[in-house]
């Protein structure tokens, strides 16, 4: 009988026990895999939202502190900058209750196209946005929410400026990630001038960098440009800018990792218990094997192989199940915005490898002590105990 056959036969000997142990390992590995997807999932979510050549420039004091209007022009003149668009929070409310239900900004219309080439806004729409002062570009999510169509006229009442603007929808941002709306800065400025005020400020400047490798040097150049001016600036990549809106998650991720370690430990105990039960029951058999000439090394490897095979098979099932589950979740999330964030958690190859390595490690760690004990025990003593 080959070693493999013996190992398999031993695993089959107490089927219920092997099944229960395997089940426990599979479930725990499944859980660990899902937990492992979380940090990467959050990261993927942010990467999907953002572009690696766009950076934000805000007043170093905070988002609610403004910058002089001239900054956008000065930033555009810097080397490495393809274009930049200055924006001001308009805070327009559409509904009667005065709630701002989607983010809306007054922007420099001529620079939208070059700063947001990845948004896929139609050329006709962009041309109209430049042509009509009262034009507005709206994200698809918001269009859907209110059932708006291109050409519709809507009124936004600002919650920060003394201005109610009649606007016409000239283009859509054809992706679901953005509920945002943009209006023409000049139009707002005129409305304010009619009331004796004027705009003159910027809230945030979005900068498109020519070359992704230049991002850091451009960020430094912008900070240098504004140093010792009336508003020093703070720059961030688009990804870190958005991640701030999710709140910092470092504490959450730490606890996630602690739980992952705990669950892994838990499986080691379950699998180790099973291995030691098997060894105890088969003490006589093992002694006989040794008596007929099997070496310690072979006995040890055979027992380890048993535990490893069980935990690896079960772990692989767990990994597969995790992959299937996240896949299902992603499909479910595609249709429901409530589950939306869960769709980003994918058991990718890295997680698959980690899960398999974990199951392998569990098998080895759990099997080593009982197997070593069994292999080392003197034959005569064991035989005496058993018979």
């Amino acid at each position, binding site marked *: 009988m080959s070693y493999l056959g013996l190992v398999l036969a031993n695993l089959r000997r107490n089927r219920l026990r092997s099944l229960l142990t395997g089940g*426990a390992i599979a*479930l725990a590995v499944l*859980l660990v895999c899902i937990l492992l997807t979380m940090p990467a999932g959050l990261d993927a979510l942010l990467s999907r939202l953002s572009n690696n050549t766009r950076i934000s420039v805000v007043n170093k004091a905070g988002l609610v502190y403004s910058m002089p209007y001239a900054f956008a022009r000065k930033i555009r003149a810097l080397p490495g900058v393809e274009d930049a668009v200055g924006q001001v929070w308009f805070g327009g409310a559409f509904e009667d209750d005065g709630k701002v239900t989607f983010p809306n900004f007054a922007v420099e219309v001529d620079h939208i196209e070059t700063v947001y080439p990845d948004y896929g806004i139609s050329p006709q729409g962009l041309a109209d946005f430049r042509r009509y002062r009262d034009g507005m570009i709206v994200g698809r999510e918001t269009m859907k929410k209110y059932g708006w169509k291109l050409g519709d006229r809507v009124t936004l009442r600002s919650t920060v400026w003394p201005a109610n603007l009649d606007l016409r929808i000239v283009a859509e941002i054809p992706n679901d990630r953005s509920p945002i709306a943009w209006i023409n800065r000049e139009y707002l400025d005129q409305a304010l001038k009619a009331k004796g005020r004027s705009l003159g400020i910027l809230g945030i400047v979005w900068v498109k960098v020519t070359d992704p490798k230049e991002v850091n040097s451009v960020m430094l150049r912008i900070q240098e440009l504004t140093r010792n001016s009336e508003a020093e600036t703070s720059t961030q990549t688009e990804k870190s800018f958005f991640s701030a809106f999710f*709140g910092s998650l470092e*504490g959450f991720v730490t606890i996630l990792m602690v739980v992952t370690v705990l669950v892994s430990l838990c499986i080691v105990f379950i699998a180790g218990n099973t291995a030691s039960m098997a060894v105890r029951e088969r003490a006589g058999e093992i002694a006989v094997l040794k008596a007929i000439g099997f070496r310690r090394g072979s006995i040890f490897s055979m027992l380890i192989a048993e535990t490893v095979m069980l935990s690896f098979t079960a772990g692989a099932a767990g990994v597969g199940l995790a992959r299937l589950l996240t896949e299902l979740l992603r499909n479910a999330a595609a249709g429901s915005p409530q589950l939306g964030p869960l769709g980003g958690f994918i058991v990718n190859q890295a997680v698959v490898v980690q899960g398999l390595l974990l199951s392998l490690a569990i098998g080895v760690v759990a099997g080593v002590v009982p197997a070593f004990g069994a292999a080392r025990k003197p034959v005569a003593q064991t035989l005496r105990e058993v018979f």
Partner: protein
Amino acid sequence: MLPISYSMGNVVARPGRSFVMIVVVALVVVACSLFLGLLSSLHRTVAMTGDPMNLVVLRKGSDNDGSSQITRLAYDSVRYLEGIATGPGGQRRVSPELVVQPFFWTKEGGRENVLVRGVEPAALDVHGDVKIVEGRMFRPRLNEILIGKALRGRYRGAEIGQRIEFGRNQWRVVGVFESDGSSFESEVWVDAQDLANDARRINPFSGVRLRAASEGDLQGLKARIDADPRFALEASRETDYYAKQAETAGSLEFLVVAIAILAGTGAGFGAANTMYASVQARTAEIGTLRALGFPRSAILLSFELESLLLSAGGFALGALLALGLAEVLRRVLGGVSFGARTFTTNLVTLSIAPRDLALSFALSLAIGLFGGLGPAWRAARLRPIEALRKA
């Protein structure tokens, strides 16, 4: 019926095997308690902020004071209304407040939005749970600030006597306040006019907080403020306001439930293994008991009881470990930061509440109950003659 001492004796008889099951249940309990504790701490910090007798008055449509602005005239329309409580010196308990969210720089160099609340000394009359525990109240026009306890040590200069850079100025920390762990402790309080100057706000206030003299007055005040057509203000009970801010994404709760079910089922399998081994080792004993006349139900019950005892032991160990680990995490991490609705940082102190432990206890009992069911059933169905023959 078999006495309980029989089950207890079995637990002790095979310490190695019992130990494994106890540890497995304990680890699951630690994992679940930590997650539950994190969620409940987050919820407690935000939702437990505020006083049920206080009203938050904001611009109609603003769902938080960071996005509200009101004029001085609007403030005047509110401050002299009837039904506002008065302090011992006869002063009205009305606090006009300005909220700004400037960047603060963490010691590691990261930037975070922190809620800075510009107030007048009257604020302490309205927010009864806010107490200065170290240092003193700020003096106006001197750029002095009070910091909430949770900010200490997290940001550059967040210590008494030091200076913090935020907005357009440097500010001297002259005091630290507490508020029973509520989200005020993640805020900075400063003179309202100092803050309005720094942020160049034309309207010096975001909103008004006021304390009603009685529940009836609170309803009356709310009705009058909501109905006043001149200023478009909206009043809500302070506790309701914070409860709304605390509505976190359902995703987190979903995650905890999924972890509990998966880890619990896995541990249940492990428990079943231990108990099956226990039944197997005692086959002869069970046969003897049956031969002596103990009914099947007694055997079933006794094994269930053994399993429950083991899982309860696992819970006890797990609870101790979880409480210890939470303490360690508190020391190491300090506050766990979460973004709030206002895009400001809320520092949450991780602590495991009795309710979290109760839920973990229920989980561990379920592990014992279901893990023990199969083995106990098998033990109860053993035929006495065959069982005795095996001996």
